[in-house]
């Protein structure tokens, strides 16, 4: 299997340093930058999606779900730690956390 981390030779590079394929920042692992990490607690989450809105790395992955009233909606599925830089914005902007009775997104030290 081809090693995706193999650095290219000069003959293989696109001309003039152009990034020829749009949207390829998704291939770039920024998860290694973390010193702290958010931990999502599904049982306390109200699925307001504030974390998804504020996340600068688009690291909250959504799934299709159904509200208590029976209407279809998007819900949080998981955090993509490949991209999460551990900035903590999600935990800070979480309305459940702000109320202070429960914690929907923990913010803990990254264990390396």
């Amino acid at each position, binding site marked *: 299997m081809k090693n995706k981390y193999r*650095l*290219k*030779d*000069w*003959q293989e*590079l*696109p*001309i*003039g*340093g*152009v*990034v*020829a*394929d*749009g949207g390829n920042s998704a291939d770039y692992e920024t998860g290694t930058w973390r010193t702290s990490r958010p931990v999502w607690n599904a049982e306390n989450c109200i699925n307001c999606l504030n974390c998804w809105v504020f996340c600068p790395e688009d690291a909250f992955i959504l799934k299709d779900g159904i509200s208590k009233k029976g209407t279809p909606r998007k819900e949080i599925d998981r955090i993509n730690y490949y991209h999460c830089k551990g900035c903590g914005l999600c935990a800070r902007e979480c309305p459940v956390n702000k109320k202070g009775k429960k914690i929907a997104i923990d913010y803990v030290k990254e264990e390396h």
Partner: protein
Amino acid sequence: MSKIVAITGAGAMSECMRQINPDVVPAFPITPSTQVIEDFSQFVADGKVDTEIITVESEHSAMSACLGAAIAGGRVMTATSSAGMALMWEMLYIAASMRQPIILSLINRALSAPINIHADHSDAMGARDAGWIQLYAENNQEAYDNLIMAPKIAENMDVRLPIMVCMDGFIISHCVQTMQLEDDDKVKEFIGEFESTYPLLDTVHPATWGALDLQNYYIEHKRAQHMAMKNAKKIIQKVSAEFAAFFGRNYDLFESYRLDDAERVIIAINSVCGEIKEVIDDRREAGDKVGLLKIRSFRPFPYDEIAQALEGVKIVTVLDRSESMGAYGPLFVEIRTALFDASKKPMVYNRIFGLGGRELFMSDIHDIFDENKTYLKTGKVEKMFDYLKVRGG
């Protein structure tokens, strides 16, 4: 129809730009930008070209706009000289590294201070490491022909580098000479259509230009750029051969003038070569075996070819019309490097002349040939480096 015209060097350049009809010409509209842009803007105003001319507030902006327009997907040209060229510095490197085939008509003039904008190669020679192809011309015909060839060389997919077409300020740019002005349609046919690479205006295939490039890739990009410049040598020869078939005038990486059996040779760049040829003809009539090697392509520099052309030559005088303070002249450095591996090395020495437009007359060139005759006779180069025609010696 192809016709003989009497025209200035700058006029020849703007006529060629009219024939090329580039998409965009960004330029700084006042001095030291040249008559080239003044004449060309007249063509734009008269509707003789479809070009978008952008008058900008500085030469730095001119080259920046060239870069933007080229990356957007257009064929782009501009013209400048002297201090204007110096102000483009940062963007010259970026244009070359981003592999944009921008075409620059450069009229070689001195850099300040003291303020002087007369014939001098300091502007182009300072930019010799910027990654641009550099072609030089003895007269307006050669400059015009080089500019016709420029798009085909620069835009070749094995090259894709910016190119500067140089001529001497005032001596060529402002003086009227007769030359062959080719037919518009024939020039257009020769040049062909512009083909862009990853243009920004292609919104269906979005691309990012000018991204960050760190320790793990920068040197690979430079290596690729080096290869492109190496390829340019072959492509200059190929395009020159096509040009000869099309228009009947022959060019190579350099011109060998009465070099075959020459013992004493001058190597020089641009307009001074005209006078040198006259002097050589005079001296040849008296049986003096002298010759000229005139540089056309300075970047890429044809080391092996020059070494081969100088086989059998006994002494070489290299004339530099720019200074590299604390070092030999830039042309001399290249020539001596080219000769280092030759089996029979000629004697070689360096003379600086003509800075700030100081004229070198035919009598002065006779003096050079007299001097290298003495050097050859005594077997010793008395002065490796010197200035010509400077008061105080």
